[in-house]
């Protein structure tokens, strides 16, 4: 990557990145991995999800992402799944077993695991 030389180059690059991360066939599984999440076991959750995604051959359409804090400290580790065209779902109190369930149910069968869902109680400024 060479340095961005002006605002146009940045804009082009932004559009490229946007497409890369949120194209119509991009499923994102985000694991909250700030210090708090990691302390609560998010590392194992991440590994478990990544392993399951590989195992089930979902590597092409699913990206597993380490993010910062999602805010729900009372329910760490937290995982958010977003499928294009659908409302993203926030899950709490995930461990490595439950992580596998999420991949199987939510991604493979398109079934929300309702008992683990957390209310996403915020709006984000646009």
């Amino acid at each position, binding site marked *: 990557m060479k340095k*961005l030389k002006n605002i146009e180059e940045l804009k082009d690059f932004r559009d490229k*990145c946007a497409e890369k991360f949120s194209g119509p066939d991009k499923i994102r599984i985000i694991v909250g991995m700030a*210090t708090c999440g990691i302390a609560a076991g998010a590392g194992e959750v991440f590994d478990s999800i990544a392993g399951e995604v590989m195992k089930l051959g979902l590597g092409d359409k699913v990206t597993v992402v380490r993010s*910062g*804090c999602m805010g729900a400290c009372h329910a760490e580790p937290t995982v958010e799944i977003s499928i294009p065209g659908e409302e993203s779902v926030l899950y709490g109190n995930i461990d490595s077993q439950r992580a596998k369930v999420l991949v199987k149910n939510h991604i493979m069968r398109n079934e929300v695991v309702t008992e683990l869902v957390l209310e996403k109680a915020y*709006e984000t400024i646009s």
Partner: protein
Amino acid sequence: MSTKKQLRIALKNCGVIDPENIEEYIARDGYMAIANILTEMTPEDVIEELKKSGLRGRGGGGFPTGLKLEFARKNKGKKKYIICNADEGDPGAFMDRSILEGDPHSILEAMVICGYAVGAGNGYIYIRAEYPLAIERLKIAIKQAYKYGLLGKNILGSGFSFDIELKYGAGAFVCGEETALINSIEGNRGEPHFKPPYPAEKGLWDMPTTVNNVETLANVPAIFNMGAEKFASIGTKTSKGTKVFALAGNVNNVGLVEVPMGTTLREIVFDIGGGITGGKGFKAVQTGGPSGGCIPVQFLDVPIDYESLREIGSMMGSGGMIIMDEDTCMVDIAKYYLEFTTDESCGKCTACRIGNKRLFEMLEKITEGKGTEEDLVKLKELGEIIKDTSLCGLGQSAPNPVLSTMKYFYNEYEAHVRDKICPAGICSSLTKFEINKDKCIGCTLCAKACPAACISGKVREPHEIDQDKCIKCGACYKACKFDAITKS
């Protein structure tokens, strides 16, 4: 509950993007604010826009950010500096850490914007060494930003250059005070000096310097992306935008929340926080960390902003918010905070070094049941003098937890002093454990748990506690399965 109470501006990318990948930040309009500024705006425009937004410092003081930058712009100096204050130290507060771990690029971008506004070419992030993950992610972010030409020489071909360096704090709470922080960066003892001169006149290496807290900075790129007017439409008359709070204590949904200024405490504690744990009663909420105060139930419906919190004896502070239930002893809480500030005082000025120590000692005396009514008079008098006489913000606000609890929970102080009881049963010297003979079945569990061996009785017969030997540890109380032990 139809409407969502939380609105994320500072946290907009936290928990959404991969903080270690600059492309994810860019995909969400990252670095567009600085790009637009460098292409279209003069430094004066930038300051004007920030003034229009009404953004005020989120680190505690609430000083208008635009004005701060304007002072530094107007003051002359061979060099100028931008400092990001990431020395978050309030007990229970982790707003800044979360932002740095979740969205480090927003801080870098904001620093470049501030640098452009004041004419500074160098920035320092003063971060406590106890935040290794935040440091790691910042390092990665800085490296990536340099790689993409978003830091360093001639940013986006604008001719403007800006460098950022990390400086680690060794954990002194007082280094969050800007003059102490600057001393620390310079390699001197981290202790404050009297202001004026303010950092905007004589800051780092005696040059004009702007010190902004992490959350303040996190708002800056967002303001330019959304427009100052839109930002200013959120919040109250004097306080615009949102505030991030770290919700902790006896509340069900502990966590990081971001709410528009003007949200009430009731909304935060009950709607967002999900109420008090164990279904207990609400007693108080402590805001502003060790510098703040305890707010009682009658103010739950006050829309909170910088001014309203100050009026009710607390302060916004950096965003720690600790919820206390009915079992909390307010004298003990005051003592806890005083212990923290006396430990963390830099020791420079008399008022803070000795004054707060004496306050703490008086509180100790009171919680041990040795306090007198005269102590209560002295406590208040000395607390007010310390506020009036201390050199820096730490000392000036250290008595707040004492004064606010005295103001709203005076009856608890009186109970400790006059009746020698701790109504919440927290202060061990004032607590008495007794065995209810009607309930005790003589299972001996309490006697086995007692570290002082002061519980006697035959098996299957009611036991008894020798009050002279009891050390009030509460082990028996916890061990008893028949509710036979009472605490008073």
